[in-house]
C-alpha cells in the first residue's frame, strides 16, 4: 500500500508533513508533541528559534516522562556526571545527538531563559555536546535533563561517554600536541630559511654576520630536534629495538645525519649546514601527519555495550523503588523496567507482560512475547507496560556482554597489520644502506678525507621525506572523499586494509534490511474510512505490530472510539460508530484458514466478518542486488534471526553466498576468524551489538546506520545505510588508492635517486638540498591529491 501524505501543510516545528494538523497561533503542527514544544518556547519568548532556520524542530517520538531522569539525582551518578560540583554551582557536559542546526545552538545556549536555575550553556557543534552550568539549589540535574528533553534535545547519557569526556578535557590531547609540534617546526623552518638567505643568494660579505646567522640557525633547530620530531625518533627507536624497519627508521637516520652534519659544519666552520632542509623536512612530515589525522568528532568508533546500556535502573529497596547504577546490580535484585527501556542484565520476569525487542542484540526482528517467569536477556528493549524483573546474572556475565571477554577485544588491532609504507621503507633502507657502503668503499680508495662528508650526505638525502608524505596525503584525501559520500572511517589506515578486502560478510537485520522501516501490505478490501478507523485503533496500542500498522497507514478522519479493549496476545477490539472492530490474531478475529506465517500477520474483522489481513515484513534496502552481483568474491550473510527470510535472502545474494541463520554473537565472530584462516581478508558489515565481535575480528568492520546520532558498535568505520549499494565502489576506490600510493613511491624514489647521485659524487651543496627537498615533497603532495580527487570523481559520480 502506498502511503499517501498530504505535503501541502508542513509542521511549523519539525517540517514534517502534517497529518492530524493542529493549529496554534496560525501555525500548523503535525502532532501534539511539536505543538507542546512550540508552546513552551513561545511562553518563554524563545520563538527566535524558528527564525534562524526553517522548521528546525525535532519531532518528539515519545512523550517525556518527568521522572525518566530521576536517577540523575542519585549522588553516585551525579558525581560521575558532573565535571564541577559545589553547593551552588554544577557543571555538566551532555552529549545531545539531536543537535543539527543553527537554531539548535541558539536554543540550547538560551536554556537559561527556560529556567532561572540554569546559569549558562554552551554548545560545541562539532562534537554535539552542550556544557551546562546550573545552580543545584534551584534546579536539579534531573530537571535540567528533562527540560532539555521537553524541547526535543534529550541528552544521551551513558557512563561510558562522560568518562571519556573528562579524560579529553583534562589532558593536552594527542591532536593538540601534533599542532603544537607543527607550529614549532613551521616557526623554526621559516626563520631558518630567512637566516639562510645570504647562502641562497651567494652573498659575499661580513663573515661575522654569517657566523651569527649560522649559530641562530643552530639555536632554532634545537627545538625541532628535541621537541617537534620526537614522534619520529621514538617510533624509529622502538621499531629498531624490535628488529623491524618501519618508515620512521630511515627518516630518523636522515634527520640525525642532517642535524649532526650541519652542527659539525658550523662548529668547524666548514660551511653553513643544512638546517633549512632539516627543519623543513620535519615541518613537511608533520603537515602530512596532521593532514592524515582528520577525525569525525561527532562520531564514536569505540563504543562497547556500556554506551548502549542504561546508566541506572529502578531497584526495589525495602518498600521503595530507587534508581541505582547498573554496575551495582547484584544477583537477586528486583528491578523495574518501563516501556522502551533496556534490560541491563539477564533476568527473569517477576510480574507483568509485554514484548521484548531483541533486534539490536540478537538480530531477531520480531519482538518476543514475555510474561511472568520468562527469562529475558540483557540488551532487550521492553515494549509495553512496566515489568518487574529479578536479576539473574551480573552485568558483565550476561549472555551478550560475555562477548567482550573474548581475546579479540583485548589486543590493539593496528599491531596485526604491516603497512604498505613500512614494507616499502624496509626495501628502501637496505638499498640506501647498500649505496652508502659502496660509496664509502669508493671514496675510501679515492679520497679518504672526503669519506665522512660523502657518507653523511648520502644518508641525508636518502631521508624518505617525499615517500613518507605519499600515504598521508593519498589516504587523507581519500578519507575526505569517503566522508563526503557517507562512509566515515576511523582513521586513514583503514583504507589500506579496505583495499585488501576480498570477502564480504553482512548482518541481516538492520544492515540488509531497514532497521525500523518495515513494509506493511494489506490483502483484502477496506474503505478509506475503515482504514482510518483501524489506524486510530492501532495507535492506542503499544503492541509493536500495532505501532507499525498505525504508522504505515495515512488515512485520516477516524470516528469516535468506544469500548476499547486490548486483549494481550490476541488483539484489540472496539466500537467505532455502529461497527465493532477486531484487529489481531487469526483466532481472535475468527479466521479459520491461515494465509501465510512467514511474516507477521494481523487480521481485521468488522462486525465479525473477516475483511483481510496486514502483513508486516522488514524491507530490504534498495539497490543491494546489483552491488552484490558486481562483487566478485565470497559473500556471506550471518543473521541472528530465524530462517523465515531464507528465500528472500537467497534471491538477493545469489546461489553462491553462504547464508547462515540463528547465529549468536560468538558464532559470528568464529565465522569471521575461520574465513580469515582460509586466507581471506574479510569486511564485516553489521549494525547491532551482536555484531560487535565480528566487526572487531574482521579486517575491516563497518557499522551500518541510518542515523549517525544513534548507537553504533565499536567499528572501523560508519556507513550511512542508504550508501550501502555503493560499497563495492568504495572498495574499488580504496584499491586505486593503493595504486596511487605506489606511483607516488616511484615519483619520490626518482627524487631520491637524483639527490643521491649528487651526494655520491660529492656535489650536494646546501642550496641543492634546499631546492630538492621541498620540490619533491610538494610534487608528491600535488600528485596524490589531484589523482585521488580525480579517481574519486570517476568512481563516485552519479
Amino acid at each position: 500500500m502506498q502511503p499517501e501524505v498530504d505535503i501541502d501543510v508542513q509542521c511549523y516545528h519539525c517540517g514534517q508533513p502534517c497529518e492530524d494538523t493542529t493549529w496554534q497561533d496560525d501555525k500548523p503542527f503535525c502532532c501534539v508533541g511539536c505543538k507542546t514544544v512550540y508552546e513552551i518556547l513561545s511562553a518563554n519568548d524563545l520563538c527566535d528559534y524558528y527564525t534562524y532556520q526553517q522548521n528546525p524542530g525535532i519531532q518528539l517520538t515519545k512523550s517525556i516522562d518527568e521522572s525518566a531522569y530521576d536517577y540523575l539525582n542519585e549522588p553516585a551518578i551525579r558525581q560521575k556526571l558532573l565535571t564541577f560540583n559545589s553547593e551552588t554551582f554544577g557543571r555538566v557536559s551532555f552529549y545531545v545527538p539531536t543537535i543539527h542546526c543553527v537554531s539548535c545552538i541558539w536554543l540550547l545556549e538560551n536554556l537559561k531563559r527556560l529556567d532561572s536555575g540554569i546559569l549558562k550553556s554552551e554548545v560545541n557543534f562539532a562534537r554535539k555536546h552542550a556544557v551546562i552550568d546550573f545552580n543545584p539549589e534551584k534546579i536539579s540535574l534531573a530537571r535540567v535533563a528533562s527540560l532539555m528533553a521537553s524541547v526535543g534535545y534529550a541528552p544521551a547519557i551513558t557512563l561510558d561517554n562522560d568518562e571519556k569526556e573528562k579524560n579529553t578535557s583534562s589532558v593536552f590531547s594527542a591532536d593538540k600536541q601534533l599542532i603544537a609540534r607543527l607550529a614549532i617546526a613551521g616557526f623554526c623552518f621559516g626563520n631558518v630559511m630567512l637566516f639562510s638567505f645570504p647562502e641562497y643568494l651567494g652573498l659575499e660579505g661580513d663573515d661575522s654576520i654569517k657566523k651569527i646567522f649560522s649559530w641562530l640557525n643552530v639555536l632554532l633547530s634545537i627545538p625541532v630536534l628535541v621537541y617537534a620530531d620526537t614522534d619520529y625518533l621514538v617510533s624509529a627507536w622502538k621499531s629498531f629495538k624490535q628488529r623491524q624497519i618501519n618508515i620512521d627508521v630511515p627518516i630518523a637516520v636522515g634527520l640525525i645525519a642532517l642535524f649532526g652534519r650541519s652542527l659539525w659544519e658550523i662548529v668547524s666552520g666548514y660551511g653553513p649546514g643544512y638546517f633549512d632542509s632539516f627543519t623543513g623536512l620535519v615541518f613537511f612530515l608533520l603537515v602530512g601527519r596532521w593532514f592524515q589525522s582528520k577525525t569525525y568528532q561527532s562520531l564514536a568508533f569505540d563504543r562497547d555495550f556500556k554506551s548502549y546500556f542504561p546508566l541506572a535502573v529502578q531497584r526495589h529497596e525495602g518498600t521503595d523503588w530507587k534508581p541505582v547504577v547498573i554496575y551495582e546490580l547484584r544477583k537477586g535484585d528486583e528491578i523495574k523496567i518501563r516501556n522502551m527501556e533496556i534490560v541491563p542484565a539477564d533476568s527473569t520476569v517477576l510480574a507483568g507482560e509485554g514484548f521484548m525487542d531483541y533486534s539490536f542484540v540478537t538480530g531477531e526482528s520480531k519482538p518476543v512475547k514475555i510474561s511472568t517467569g520468562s527469562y529475558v536477556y540483557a540488551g532487550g528493549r521492553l515494549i509495553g507496560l512496566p515489568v518487574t524483573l529479578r536479576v539473574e546474572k551480573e552485568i558483565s556475565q550476561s549472555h551478550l556482554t560475555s562477548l567482550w571477554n573474548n581475546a579479540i577485544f583485548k589486543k590493539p588491532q593496528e599491531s596485526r597489520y604491516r603497512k604498505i609504507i613500512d614494507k616499502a621503507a624496509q626495501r628502501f633502507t637496505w638499498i640506501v644502506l647498500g649505496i652508502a657502503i659502496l660509496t664509502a668503499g669508493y671514496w675510501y680508495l679515492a679520497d679518504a678525507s672526503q669519506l665522512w662528508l660523502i657518507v653523511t650526505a648520502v644518508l641525508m638525502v636518502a631521508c624518505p621525506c617525499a615517500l613518507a608524505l605519499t600515504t598521508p596525503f593519498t589516504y587523507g584525501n581519500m578519507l575526505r572523499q569517503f566522508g563526503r559520500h557517507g562512509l566515515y572511517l576511523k582513521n586513514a589506515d583503514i583504507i589500506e586494509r579496505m583495499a585488501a578486502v576480498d570477502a564480504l560478510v553482512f548482518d541481516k537485520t538492520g544492515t540488509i534490511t531497514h532497521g525500523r522501516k518495515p513494509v506493511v501490505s494489506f490483502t483484502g478490501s477496506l474503505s478509506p474510512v475503515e482504514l482510518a478507523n483501524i489506524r486510530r485503533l492501532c495507535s492506542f496500542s503499544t503492541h509493536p505490530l500495532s505501532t507499525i500498522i498505525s504508522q504505515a497507514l495515512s488515512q485520516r478522519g477516524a470516528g469516535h472510539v468506544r469500548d476499547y479493549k486490548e486483549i494481550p496476545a490476541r488483539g484489540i477490539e472496539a466500537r467505532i460508530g455502529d461497527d465493532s472492530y477486531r484487529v489481531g490474531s487469526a483466532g481472535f478475529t475468527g479466521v479459520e484458514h491461515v494465509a501465510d506465517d512467514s511474516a507477521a500477520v494481523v487480521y481485521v474483522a468488522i462486525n465479525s466478518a473477516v475483511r483481510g489481513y496486514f502483513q508486516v515484513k522488514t524491507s530490504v534496502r534498495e539497490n543491494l542486488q546489483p552491488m552484490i552481483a558486481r562483487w566478485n568474491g565470497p559473500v556471506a550473510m550471518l543473521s541472528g534471526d530465524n530462517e523465515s527470510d531464507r528465500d528472500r535472502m537467497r534471491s538477493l545474494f545469489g546461489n553462491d553466498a553462504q547464508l547462515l541463520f540463528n547465529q549468536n554473537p560468538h558464532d559470528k565472530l568464529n565465522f569471521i576468524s575461520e574465513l580469515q584462516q582460509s586466507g581471506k581478508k574479510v569486511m564485516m558489515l553489521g549494525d547491532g551489538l551482536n555484531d560487535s565481535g565480528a566487526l572487531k575480528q574482521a579486517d575491516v568492520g563497518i557499522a551500518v546506520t541510518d542515523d549517525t546520532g544513534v548507537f553504533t558498535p565499536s567499528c572501523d568505520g560508519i556507513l550511512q545505510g542508504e550508501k550501502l549499494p555503493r560499497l563495492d565502489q568504495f572498495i574499488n576506490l580504496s584499491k586505486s588508492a593503493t595504486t596511487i600510493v605506489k606511483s607516488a613511491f616511484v615519483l619520490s624514489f626518482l627524487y631520491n635517486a637524483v639527490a643521491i647521485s649528487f651526494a655520491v659524487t660529492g656535489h650536494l651543496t646546501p642550496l641543492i638540498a634546499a631546492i630538492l627537498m621541498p620540490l619533491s615533497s610538494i610534487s608528491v603532495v600535488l600528485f596524490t591529491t589531484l589523482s585521488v580527487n580525480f579517481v574519486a570523481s570517476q568512481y563516485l559520480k552519479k
Partner: protein
Amino acid sequence: MKIIILLIVISVTIAVVFLAIFYWSMKSGQYDDTYTPSVRMLFDEPKPSVEGEQKGNVKKTA
C-alpha cells in the same frame, strides 16, 4: 652592520611572542570548536517584548 643584529633580535623576539600567543590560544581551547562561535556571534540579544514593537523600546532585560 651592527644594526642588523639589533633588528634580528627584535624580529625574532616578536616572532617568539606570536608563537607563544598561538600556543596559549591553543592550550586555552580556542580551536576546539571552530564552528559554534561563528554562529553564536550572529545571534541577536534577547528582545524584551513581543514582535511588532520595534526599537526605541528599552534595551535587554537580563
